[in-house]
Each structure stands twice: as structure tokens, then as C-alpha cells.
């Protein structure tokens, strides 16, 4: 257990040991995941961050190498020791999904891997799911441990820390002087807390979605479904598990930048042919990718139920309704 009043001391000690700490910082338009300059910046008054935290491992725009004097200068590997503090369990879970993509048996993305290896994820269990949340329908829970090193529960005056990985446990040992042993009441408080939060999450019936989607590739439902969509990329930029990117050569450098399957240019070929010419095919791709292709490739639905796409969509395309409409 860590008294909330003592969190400043704990974080200060972590910072003194050379860690960059990114945590919930109160800003003009809400709490965002930002680098803590001082320990006073922390605010626990938030539901979830506006932007998904994938950007810490897989930045929106990233330099890969520069060309200079007829040689290629690779970008140095990121070495900063980092703490991500206050990540919600749905988002932490997205890290373990992205690991499947970027740290594959056949190919490893060194930039992604280095950032992951140098980062300790301390997540914070949800005590207040939002109307857009549906983590329990896609295999998560408000107190899920997947993808995290340490899970904290906010029990009011204190935070209850639970080790979730070896890395997390050896990290916590270094700072054991800040923590007290939880008593029976604390353990009970945590149990109540999980039960209460889980009950509040909206449930969506997507049983056997992958099996059913296999039959739907040529269905006319996609035309109907996609008609409202404006083809902006908000849902993909806000999705913690969307990982598509484009490579671009600029004058003296090569960068990779997040891309979005909602854009018509996403699959435009040099010949001018576009295999996904309308929003109907693009919408199908987004849903198939998350609920069928990744199930086939990695055995996982690539949606953590954070609900960001639901709230950020300018025309209220709701993936919970969409998937149900498709699989019927």
C-alpha cells in the first residue's frame, strides 16, 4: 500500500534514479499522459487519457534514418528509462497486442522493442467505466493485468500496488521503503472495487464474431454500415491497437508515420488502381482486421474496448453496434 500523500516521495525517488516519468497531468482540456516535470503535476482526477498511449512505443512520426554524404545514418535507438504511470488496464492490454506485431518471431522492430524494454508500465485499475467502455466484452476487465508490470488500485486515500510481472516485482523491491503491507480490509476493499467496476461495464454480444465474419466478406451490409462514415481517420488515430504506418522519404531522411485504413489513399496503387475504392471496403477492412484477421494471426481480437473510437467519431459510428449489425 502507498498513501496517496506519499506518492510524491515515491515518484521523486524514481525520478532521481534516472527515470523519465509519464503520468496523468492536469491540462487545460483534461488530463493527459505527459511527462511529469515535478511530482506535483500528478492528478488522479481522470477517466482515461484522450489519446491512446501507444504513441510512447510507436510514435506518430518517427525518424528511421538520415542520408548525408552518401551514407545512411540510422536513428539512434531510444535508451531512456521510462515509467508510464496511470495507464488504464484496457490500454495496458493494447501493449501486449502491439508486442505481437512489433516483436515477432521473424522480425523485430528495434525501436519499439527498446522502448518496451526500457519502460515499466504502472497501470491504474478503473473505478468508473464510461458509457462508451466495453472492455469485458473483448476479453479485458477494469482491473486487467495483461501488458502491465504493476497494477495499482485507487482505494481512496491509498493506492494498492500489485506486481504483475517479474520486472514489476523487482522494480517495486527497490522502493519497498515507501510501501506498507496491506491488511485484510485493504484486500477486501480491492475485491469490492473490482466487482463494482466490472458490473458497470456495458456488455456487447460478439460471441464467435470471427467465425461469423468469415461469411460476411461479400455481404451488402458493409455498404449500409459505411454510408454514415466520413472517412476521417479519428477512429484509427485514437485506437490503442491500430498499428498501420506508412514510410516516407523526405529530402534527407526516411520517416514512418501512422496511417489509417479509413483513408482512400491507404491502398491506392501506383497504377491508379485502388482495391478498396469506397468507404464500404475500408470499413470492412477495419472491422475484419480487428475481429477476424488478428484472431487468425495472433489468436486475439485487436480491440480492447476502450471506447475512444465511439466517443471521438464526429458522426457517432459505434463499433459496438457495427459489429453486432454485421454478425447479426
Amino acid at each position, binding site marked *: 500500500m502507498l498513501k496517496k500523500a506519499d506518492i510524491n516521495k515515491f515518484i521523486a525517488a524514481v525520478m532521481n534514479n534516472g527515470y523519465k516519468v509519464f503520468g496523468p497531468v492536469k491540462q487545460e*482540456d483534461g488530463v493527459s499522459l505527459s511527462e511529469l516535470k515535478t511530482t506535483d503535476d500528478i492528478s488522479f482526477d481522470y477517466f482515461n487519457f484522450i489519446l491512446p498511449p501507444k504513441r510512447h512505443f510507436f510514435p*506518430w512520426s518517427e525518424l528511421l534514418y538520415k542520408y548525408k554524404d552518401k551514407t545512411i545514418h540510422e536513428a539512434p535507438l531510444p535508451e531512456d528509462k521510462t515509467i508510464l504511470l496511470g495507464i488504464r488496464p484496457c490500454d495496458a492490454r493494447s501493449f501486449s497486442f502491439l508486442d505481437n506485431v512489433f516483436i515477432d518471431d521473424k522480425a523485430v522492430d528495434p525501436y519499439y522493442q527498446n522502448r518496451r524494454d526500457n519502460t515499466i508500465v504502472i497501470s491504474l485499475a478503473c473505478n468508473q467505466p*464510461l*458509457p462508451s467502455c466495453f472492455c469485458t466484452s473483448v476479453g479485458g476487465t477494469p482491473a486487467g493485468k495483461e501488458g502491465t508490470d504493476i497494477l495499482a488500485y485507487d482505494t481512496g486515500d491509498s493506492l494498492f500496488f500489485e506486481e504483475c510481472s517479474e520486472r514489476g516485482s523487482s522494480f517495486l523491491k527497490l522502493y519497498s521503503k515507501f510501501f506498507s503491507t496491506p491488511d485484510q480490509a485493504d484486500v477486501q476493499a480491492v475485491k469490492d472495487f473490482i466487482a463494482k467496476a466490472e458490473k458497470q461495464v456495458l456488455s456487447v454480444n460478439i460471441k464467435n464474431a470471427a467465425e461469423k465474419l468469415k461469411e460476411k466478406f461479400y455481404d451488402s451490409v458493409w455498404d449500409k454500415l459505411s454510408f454514415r462514415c466520413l472517412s476521417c*481517420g*479519428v477512429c484509427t488515430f485514437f485506437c490503442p491497437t491500430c498499428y498501420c504506418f506508412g514510410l516516407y522519404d523526405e529530402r534527407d531522411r526516411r520517416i514512418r508515420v501512422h496511417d489509417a485504413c479509413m483513408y482512400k489513399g491507404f491502398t491506392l496503387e501506383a497504377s491508379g488502381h485502388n482495391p478498396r475504392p469506397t468507404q464500404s471496403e475500408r470499413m470492412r477492412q477495419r472491422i475484419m482486421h480487428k475481429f477476424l484477421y488478428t484472431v487468425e494471426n495472433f489468436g486475439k481480437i485487436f480491440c480492447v474496448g476502450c471506447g475512444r473510437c465511439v*466517443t471521438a467519431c*464526429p458522426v457517432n459510428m459505434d463499433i459496438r453496434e457495427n459489429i453486432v449489425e454485421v454478425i447479426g
Partner: protein
Amino acid sequence: MGGTESIENKLKDAVKDLFLKKKVDIVIGFEKGSLPLTSRPCFIRSSDMAERLVWNASCTNNLAVYLPRFFQKVPRAKKSGTPPPVVGIVAKGCDARSVVGLIKEKQILKENVVIIGMSCQGVIDRRKIESFIDGSFIAGGRQEPGGILEITTGVGDKKKIKVSDVLAESCIECQYPHVENADVRIDGESITASDDGYKAIKAFEEKSPEERWQYFTDEISRCIRCYACRQACPNCYCKVCFAEQTLPRWIGPGDELSDVMIYHIGRIFHQAGRCVECNACVRACPVGIDLRLFTRKLCMDVKELFGYIPGLSIEELPPLLRFELNDNNDFITTG
């Protein structure tokens, strides 16, 4: 907002009537959204579907954005003998001005659009509601007669908020809430036109160039380049946007601030003499950038320099489509 329900019923009846008299093939309107206190675009294809329509202060979108897609295939349709559909559109004052703009820019056919003009009382800004229920979220909500929103907060509290206290800035400053070119009119109480003009813009103009540049930089540096502002805008119908052209590539795709700024400057300047101040870009922006200030400055300039209000009259050509010898040319500097 007295009587939105009766307006809603009148709207349903009017739409049913349009279908029964075979005056429309499709009507774009609003239905209940999936989140509390939201409405969203819907497409009505028969008179029985009209029951889905809603009308309240959460009908925020500018539905004119959907119109060009019905007419894009007109040349091919003519060959095969299928006429383009007649599309009805539920329109607030600003939305109707967008429709007129699209007609003038020849993106849609005037005779194939039926404007259902609503008496607009302004729409809500969700961010403002959230600031009213300090730190909580909107867990439930409905609009009651008399312009009152009953909000259930995340902690289960019930709060009553006046619609007029949480109106979008664009509605507070709206100078033309009335639908001028309605084919069908749904009568009801309307918001009072503001004569506030461009006070906020004038105040911004008073600032030093450094302060203005700093504000622009701060706002634009938050952009994630999702292009939602462009996609939500009825005026942005280009088949290929300059931001995505590759031959030549006008701007880089990454997070270089200069690239992001050029996208926004390009978008804003393309709105001169065309923007109807419907606020669709601002609402669509998922990170809350103050796009309105910049676009509105151009609206003000066009109004002051050319006396032109986009979308009010179908006949009057926009300043960029016409030339007159006495056009204002103060901006040309010599020497």
C-alpha cells in the same frame, strides 16, 4: 427550448408527406445516437422510417457534407438512364447555407435537393456540459421542454442545465439562424440572431504579431493530422486534397510543425468566401483545436471587403468566382 418535441413531430409528418407525395427518394436527418445526449446522421428511405427522426439541441452535424456523394456519379448515371435521386435534407440555418454553397459550386443539383428548413435554437457543446458537471461525465441525459437538459452524471447526480448556457460558441454568435431557402419549413421558435459580429476576432487582431503567431503555433502543434476537420466540412469535397497529393507532394506527412501549419493554412484559406460558420470542423476535432478563430477571421474579411455572406442567396456569385473593376484591392502593395 420550448416544444422541440412538437417540432420533432412536425418534422416526422413533413418527411412522411414528402415520401407519400413521391417528392423525395431519400431524406438525410438525425436519429438518436448511441451515447447519452447525442444525435447522429441517418438516412431515411421510406415514410415508415421517418419515425426514427429526432430534433433537439444535440443535432449538431452539418448534414450537407453527405450531399455531394449522391451526385458524384451523375455523368455515368445519365448514360445508363438512371436519374440522380432527389435528396431531402434536414437543415439548420448554417446547414442550408452550405447546401446553397454546394449548389453554387455545382457539386449538387438544385432541382434534386429539398431543403427542410428547421427553426434553429442552437446546438449544444458537449465540452461545455462537461465543465458544468465538474470532473464527472455525462452518463445519461435528455432534453425537457423549456430548453432544459436533464443530465445524469457519472456519480448518479441529476443536474438541470439550460441549453442556452451550454450553446456552442458558433450558435451564440450566429448571425443567420433563419433558413432562407427552405422548400419545406418546420415552424417553431428560433434562436435570436446575434449582432455581436466579430468582436472576438477584432480582439485577436489587436494582439501583436508575435502573440498571434504564438497562439496559432500552440493550437496547431496539438494537431494529430487525422483530417477530421476536413472530412466533416461540406466545403471540402475535393477528390484529392492538396495535403495528400504526391505529384508534387506539397507538404510532408510527418509531425514537422511547418507541414502541419501549411495543411491548416491551406484548409483555412480555401474557406474564404465559402465558410458558413457551422462549426463542423471544431466539433469534429478530437483534440479540441480552436479552428474557429482562424477560419472566422477570413469570413469577417470577406464580409468587410466584399460585402458577401456565403450561402444566403443562390444567385449571388462568391467573390472568388467573379471580377469587378471596383473590387477591393487594398491588399496589393507597391513600391
